């Protein structure tokens, strides 16, 4: 595996690779997102219980699952940076944190806007909501640690430790709130034995989900190449690149 990974662990190669990948990601993201969103807003049928407010689902669910997915990938990057000293993993973790924070915030905002008409409240201290909020705090902590250290390398290590502590804590928090606030019980029982989603609602969701994931890819690529440049500013290839760009 190391042999295969090695060329990509070279910052210069990775920088050019992200540059090459970026337009592809961008076009695909634009295509999928526009199809998905138009479908979701105009053509998807309204839900039998929730009416048109159900359309929030198409941004809320992708945002929520991406916010967690990004955290998990950030934790994996943090782990490989701490254990195997992969420097680029640090850069990728630093690139992911703000994207994850933004998606967590989106999940929270859209969740609130959905909860108000459906549950009758903007906010309840339910397990998912609370753990999502804590996730936002963790992201903010990671970002703050990244910017608090002058030395990018140290910042990456400190943020990595926090990320890993958070990985252990998020499930604990989720389960603790679930025990503490048993609102969930009602829904799990009444849910059994019903169809989960009809196809004409599912397809726009799949498009939205892929579109948002690709958008995440685009933003992470954009930030990743910034981080690579910042961390390798004294390398000759960066110097040359800067000279070309500033002329």
């Amino acid at each position: 595996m190391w042999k295969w990974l090695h060329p990509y662990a070279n910052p210069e190669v990775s920088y050019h690779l992200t540059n090459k990948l970026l337009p592809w990601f961008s076009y695909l993201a634009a295509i999928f997102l526009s199809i998905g969103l138009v479908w979701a807003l105009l053509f998807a049928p309204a839900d039998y219980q929730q009416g048109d407010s159900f359309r929030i689902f198409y941004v809320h669910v992708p945002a929520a699952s991406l916010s967690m997915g990004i955290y998990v990938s950030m934790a994996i990057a943090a782990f490989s940076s701490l254990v195997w000293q992969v420097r680029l993993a640090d850069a990728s973790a630093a690139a992911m944190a703000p994207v994850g924070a933004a998606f967590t915030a989106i999940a929270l905002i859209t969740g609130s806007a959905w909860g108000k008409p459906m549950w009758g409240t903007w906010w309840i201290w339910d397990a998912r909501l609370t753990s999502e909020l804590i996730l936002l705090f963790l992201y903010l902590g990671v970002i703050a640690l990244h910017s608090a250290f002058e030395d990018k390398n140290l910042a990456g290590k400190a943020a990595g430790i926090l990320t890993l502590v958070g990985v252990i804590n998020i499930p604990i928090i989720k389960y603790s709130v679930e025990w503490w606030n048993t609102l969930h019980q009602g829904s799990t029982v009444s849910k059994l034995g019903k169809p989960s989603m009809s196809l004409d609602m599912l397809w726009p969701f799949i498009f939205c989900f892929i579109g948002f994931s690709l958008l995440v890819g685009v933003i992470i690529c954009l930030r990743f190449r910034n981080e690579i440049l910042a961390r390798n500013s004294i390398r000759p290839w960066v110097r040359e690149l800067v000279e070309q760009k500033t002329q």
Partner: protein
Amino acid sequence: MTPSTTPKASLLLSAKNLTCIRQDRLLFDALSFDVFAGDIIQVEGPNGSGKTSLLRILTGLSQPYEGQVLFQSTATHNKENLQAITRYREEYQQNLLYFGHLSGIKGEMTVEENLSFNIALHGDNTDGQAQALTNVNLMGFEDNLASNLSAGQHRRTALARLYQSNAPIWILDEPFTAIDKQGVSDLEALFLAHAQRGGCIILTTHQDLSALANTQLKKITLDYSNDIAFD
């Protein structure tokens, strides 16, 4: 840059290809040298040239950007076996005495408590403590709280540990700061004695080490010559 090798002396510490980057500045690049028993090495260079960074890398407190520091390990029962200090951290630190800019002296404790804690923390014998205090001219102050001491006395409290230490590798960052003339010459004598019994000393100082000039004094000079782009 590399101190010449005395064939008989045993190798204690070896720096391989050290590169240090601080705040987007390359301080030194591909720095390699060996430290043998009996060596006294003075690291020279203008302010901000990376002297302290080099010493901290040698102690293992900081990690170099590239390269590694090796030491002679007994854990593997092989005299010629050099091991990375990060791998055998605890064993290396038994052989190491580091004295940094900060003295590590607690104002809330007395001189004696400070000294005995420092000695015990590093696993050394606390028997000769009274002698050590005499050596740094602090006898009579042992019950004073360290916060009541002058800057020089504060410094000497920390230095007293040098007289107690069994560690062969001494890494000293500006040991002569706030020390009077007599103290400086005492320390120089101590350094000589330490080198003669098979230890090594790596230090930074702006003092002219006159007393040591004729002995094994070697120099590593850091200047800005390296702070250019590298590949």
